[in-house]
């Protein structure tokens, strides 16, 4: 392998990050100093070293003997846990980076016309995956633990942990590379094209990420402290010795506890696993690296005329066509799927919280009402706000199809609003059922909040659609943004205000429930009716604004 070639390829991959950050070069610059390229890693090493020396100094001068022995145990556990922690962090970051890249028009085709071997290409690809946060973490942690270990007398373990961290990061990078190649081959999903399978893989993996994140968060916040958490990681690592990904950590653990034969066995196994993974990457790249974009067949090609259900519901053929097109867009385009993920995350949070609070049930009705409101009302409102926000900008450069097709502003707004209402309303029964099983609200409370959710969805949806049309961003480079940043903020603020305006008549009832002081001057049903009237008025006004914005949009082709 030619390491200079690998270094040059890594340089290209690093520059590819510009696509993600939207960085535009003003002048042709070839003379960038390598010192500045790697400055962040140098700074991380310096900070790590300084922190390590500081902790070591305190350990020597300020810690009493009993704390010192406690510290040594915790520090040993920390070092043993490090390879697995780095593996998880690197996997998450490299996978997320792949998702990020998939949202751009960025292509990572191997430069097959250059004298580069597949080993070099694969090595560069793995190393460049590890660049950024994972490598910065290693660059900071390794000198820190070595510095501390110099004071605590655990230098061999610290050096071993540093090497193990690098091995773990490489393992994670290689794993991501395997997933990337397979994903490209079997779904064609990483780049511009997409398929149903790719979308659901991504959807599931994003959900798994959020669930894992929340479990860790809950453990750290509600659990029994960081030292026990580290102990738990070390124990899990040992218990899962048969999983090759933890073999580096297991090796370290055996060496730390003086079991050198077991340590040597797992060291050999670790090396074999890493080598095997690397050669798997190389062989997959050799086989599929120069792929032809796969033909992703989602229909048989047999013409299937539409039966016109939407037509029976009162939609014109133009509106039905737009609705069907948008439905396909939101189920096939990865950058749009966040509109569906966020409400699900909102549901997951109270479910996990309920596990923590299940033992200490509160007698107050307010947490129940608030929890149910959060679970049922919030996802639908958020979805209405997000969909309204996206639905015009998601057209991207293909907005030209809308411009030169016989689509009136009325057709356009009606189809987009209907789409948004359909999805926001359809999620309402789902979130309400989840909320009901978690919080067991009174039936009156439940129906009141469901009615309010519908009101909010109508008003906020119309407003976000109006904002989305006004602030649409059709640029697809560096990545689809859907809406300009300033309009995103305006949308957030105005939708918040509109939601509050709809809910305002119920505020006295909420204050009464919270404080116990009689503050209400309206019966609940009266407050709900007034809230409905406010929502209806706001909906009509915002819908008209959306229509006016759409008229402006359809004659804006000159921009």
């Amino acid at each position, binding site marked *: 392998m030619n390491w200079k070639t690998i270094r040059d390829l890594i340089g290209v991959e690093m520059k590819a990050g510009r696509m993600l950050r939207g960085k535009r070069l003003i002048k042709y610059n070839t003379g960038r100093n390598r010192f500045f390229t790697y400055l962040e890693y140098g700074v991380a090493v310096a900070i790590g070293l300084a922190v390590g020396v500081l902790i070591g100094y305190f350990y020597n001068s300020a810690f009493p003997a009993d704390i010192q022995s406690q510290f040594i145990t915790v520090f040993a556990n920390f070092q043993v846990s490090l390879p697995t922690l780095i593996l998880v962090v690197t996997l998450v970051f490299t996978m997320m980076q792949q998702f990020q890249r998939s949202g751009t028009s960025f292509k990572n085709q191997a430069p097959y016309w250059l004298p580069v071997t597949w080993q070099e290409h694969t090595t560069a690809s793995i190393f460049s995956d590890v660049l950024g946060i994972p490598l910065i973490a290693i660059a900071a942690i390794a000198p820190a633990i070595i510095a501390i270990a110099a004071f605590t007398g655990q230098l061999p373990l610290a050096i071993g942990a540093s090497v193990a961290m690098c091995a773990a990061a490489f393992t994670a990078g290689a794993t991501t590379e395997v997933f990337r190649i397979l994903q490209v081959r079997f779904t064609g999903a990483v780049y511009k094209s997409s398929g149903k399978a790719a979308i659901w893989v991504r959807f599931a993996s994003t959900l798994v990420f959020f669930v894992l994140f929340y479990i860790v968060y809950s453990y750290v916040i509600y659990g029994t402290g960081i030292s026990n958490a580290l102990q738990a990681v070390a124990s899990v690592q040992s218990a899962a010795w048969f999983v090759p990904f933890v073999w580096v950590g297991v090796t370290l653990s055996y060496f730390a506890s003086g079991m050198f034969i077991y340590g040597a066995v797992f060291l050999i196994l670790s090396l074999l696993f890493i080598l095997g993974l690397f050669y798997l990457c190389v062989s997959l790249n050799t086989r599929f690296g120069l792929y032809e974009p796969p*033909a992703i067949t989602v229909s048989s090609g047999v013409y299937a005329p539409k039966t016109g259900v939407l037509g029976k519901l009162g939609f014109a053929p133009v509106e039905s066509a737009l609705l069907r097109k948008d439905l396909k867009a939101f189920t096939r385009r990865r950058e749009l799927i966040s509109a569906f993920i966020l409400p699900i995350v909102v549901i997951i949070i109270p479910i996990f919280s309920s596990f923590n609070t299940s033992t200490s049930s509160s007698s107050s009705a307010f947490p129940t009402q608030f929890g149910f409101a959060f679970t049922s009302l919030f996802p639908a409102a958020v979805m209405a706000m997000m969909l309204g926000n996206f639905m015009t900008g998601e057209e991207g450069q*293909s907005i030209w199809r809308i*411009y030169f097709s016989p689509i009136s502003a009325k057709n356009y707004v009606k189809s987009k609003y209907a789409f948004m209402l359909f999805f926001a309303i359809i999620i309402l029964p789902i979130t309400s059922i989840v909320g009901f099983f978690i919080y067991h609200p009174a039936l009156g409370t439940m129906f009141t909040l469901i009615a309010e959710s519908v009101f909010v969805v109508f008003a906020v949806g119309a407003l976000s659609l109006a904002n989305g049309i006004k602030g649409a961003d059709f640029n697809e480079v560096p990545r689809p943004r859907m809406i300009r940043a300033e309009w995103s903020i305006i949308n957030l603020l105005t939708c918040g205000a509109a939601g509050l305006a709809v809910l305002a008549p119920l505020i006295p009832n909420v204050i009464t429930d919270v404080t116990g002081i009689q503050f209400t001057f309206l019966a609940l049903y009266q407050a709900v009716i007034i809230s409905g009237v406010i929502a209806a008025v706001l909906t009509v006004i915002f819908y008209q604004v959306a229509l006016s914005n759409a008229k402006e949009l359809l004659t804006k082709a000159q921009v």
Partner: protein
Amino acid sequence: MSTNYANAVELKNVTKRYNELVAVNNLNLTLSQGEIFGLLGPNGSGKSTTLKMLLGLVQPEEGSVHVLGIDAKKDPVAIKKLVGYAPEAPHLYEFLTGIEFLDFIGDIYGMHTEEKRSRINEYLKALQLEGREGDMISSYSEGMKQKVALISAFLHKPKLLILDEPLNALDPRTARIVKDFLQELKQQGVTTIMSTHILEIAQAVCDRIGIMYQGKLLALGNMEELRRMASMPSSGLEDIFLKLTGTGDIKAVVEELVK
């Protein structure tokens, strides 16, 4: 919507400015029904703006634009219903399959299901897209995307075709089919406006050619008339174009590059 019209396209004293830049300057152009018209000009000469004005996408500051008897300012949607447009960049929805996209286009133009089905199948067969219609457009080659864009322009039997570089990326067989098809459509009274940089195509296909430069229509006529205007009796369109647009300093540029 008016259906009685003497001319397919009528631009009278049309001027369009983008801030200080005059994109189209006092343009007068009349096209009769069944004419194939080639609009030529260097980059930035105002061709695209003119085409956009025909579709009502851009409103002129001065003058009037009538397409198929309809005022482009008053009822652009009515014009779009009668016009088939194939832009230079196809702007297809890449997350749809070919057949889904054409189905979408058929619905947008309010075609009946049976007619839509038979026409889509005919075009897919004629342009050799059969067998790939169920694949995502994102997996298509540039030529296949261009075929889909052309089918989407032809599908609803438009009265006026506006084609921006229509033969881009097409294989010779398909290019020939498209050229012959335009001639057939001409017999049926369909007017075609074609913008292209491939001057041989314009010379071979178009009845009349207009050459735009810096927002003005420098020359308008059939090949014979253009030769007379340029005082180049036996020249091809390329030489006439270069002479009329004052961009004929090719030899000097090439000599400079050779150095």
